[in-house]
């Protein structure tokens, strides 16, 4: 176990140095879209709307936090890993080193997790001023960390599958963008027809939104969604290990 933790640290060290070199840029970039969503949907479109007996702004802030965990974690992991693998080819240095596949996969998620947590923390702090109903609970923190890890692992999957920047963009358009708007971040899933609901429960962001909203608003906690998100975490991890073993050029 200590050996695995050491390997995760070794692999992530370079990415964290990169983050340090580019801290301000990275932080600003990861805050732009959540703030835009907040202003557009929270204030622009529905200042007087009520959703699930709550002011709409209080309803969407946990959704936007879930969305930020997806966007920041996925994109920072996938983009940097894709560049390292296909363009710098520095990923090869990792592959010829005596590191375990699990150490490499989990190490590569760290950048996404740190960026996701930073971005979500900022939104949460902002959210406390806009919606005093929000609560910081241990379950919320745990759910947020699990979300960031899950989406960062999805970023690793995308980077390992990508054959070019083009394929990365296609992955974002086909998987990430639909999740952004459909997975219960901006509205309650109950508003949709049952079939649509069933399909959307097949996406991790639906569960992430659901658990973060419940944990931060004091609603009954959907343990099944937590279990489902943990299932996605395990599935993405196993897929990544398989891809690292088999997708060698």
């Amino acid at each position, binding site marked *: 176990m200590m050996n695995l933790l050491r390997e995760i*640290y070794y692999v992530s060290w*370079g990415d964290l*140095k*990169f983050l340090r*070199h580019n801290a301000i840029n990275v932080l600003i970039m990861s805050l732009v879209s959540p703030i835009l969503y907040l202003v557009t949907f929270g204030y622009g479109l529905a200042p007087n709307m009520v959703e699930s007996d709550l002011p709409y702004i209080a309803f969407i802030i946990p959704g936007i936090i879930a969305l930020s965990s997806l966007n920041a974690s996925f994109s920072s992991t996938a983009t940097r890993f894709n560049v390292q693998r296909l363009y710098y080819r*520095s990923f090869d*240095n990792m592959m010829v*080193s005596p590191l375990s596949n699990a150490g490499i996969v989990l190490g590569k998620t760290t950048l996404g997790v740190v960026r996701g947590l930073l971005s979500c923390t900022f939104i949460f702090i902002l959210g406390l001023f806009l919606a005093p109903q929000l609560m910081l609970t241990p379950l919320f923190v745990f759910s947020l960390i699990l979300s960031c890890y899950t989406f960062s692992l999805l970023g690793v999957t995308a980077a390992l599958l990508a054959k070019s920047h083009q394929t990365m963009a296609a992955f974002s358009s086909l998987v990430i963008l639909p999740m952004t708007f459909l997975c219960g971040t901006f509205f309650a899933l109950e508003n949709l027809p049952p079939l649509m609901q069933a399909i959307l429960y097949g996406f991790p962001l639906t569960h992430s939104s659901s658990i973060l909203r419940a944990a931060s608003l004091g609603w009954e906690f959907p343990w099944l969604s937590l279990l489902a998100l943990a299932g996605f975490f395990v599935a993405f991890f196993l897929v990544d290990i398989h891809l690292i073993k088999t997708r*060698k050029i």
Partner: protein
Amino acid sequence: MDNIIVIENIVKRFGDHTAVDGLSLDIGRGEIFGFLGPNGAGKTTTVRLMTTLANLDEGRIVIDGHDISKDPIKAKRCLGLIQQNVSLDKELTVYENMMHHAMFQKIPKAERRKRIEELIEYVELDRYRDYMVNSLSGGWKKRVAIVCSLLHNPKILFLDEPTVGLDIDARRKLWDLIKKMNKDGTTVFLTTHYIEEAEAICDRVGIIDNGRLIALDSPKELRNRIGRMAVEYYGEDGKTEYRYFPGRQEANDFATNLGNDYTVIVRRTNLEDCFVEITGKKVGGLR
């Protein structure tokens, strides 16, 4: 001499194309081995198979006693790799790249800085240590890549076309560095397009074409195979012909008999002559 690399009948296919086709080869400990071949012959694929960057379809590779399919981690501890395109993190500094490599190789924390300083001195990198890799010239990037691959004192260093894109001065400095590393005990496996590179530094040379090993010997023995002397001549049509002879006398006699219609050069045979004779191709392309 015991063998530090044993390659047994390896095969690698990409769809219908067989890139490496039943290659078998042994590399002795302490050797500088040159791997020559035209473009697409299977040189880089062979290196990627030996360094675990590609998976074998058939056959077996043993690195310092460790089968790379069964025990890849132990095999990886023995090897360093320098690729044709410098594989460094260009958004980190020289020092950060070295430190990151030292971590990959699990060099104990107490030794990392010492080892990095030694190598910075070894290749005179001191004034560039805090430069972003992106801002360095090709030659210096290559030096950084080399020291990164040497941090863990690998028993075997794989160099895949290491001097492509370097100027003559940088290339010769790199040759000196390779010879110095070899003198310090590192086995070197080198693929190259540059025939003079193979002649200058390799103890043995293998020639690969269409994924198959078609010749294997020391540069001197390969030259002797076709004859020590070459006659290169061309007439009005501009097409150059080559003939090879065991000694200078036979070559001179042939040149004299050609008469005045040809421009004639009599010279020692080189590895390029062997390569062309054996493969029917120029290095890097078709004849």
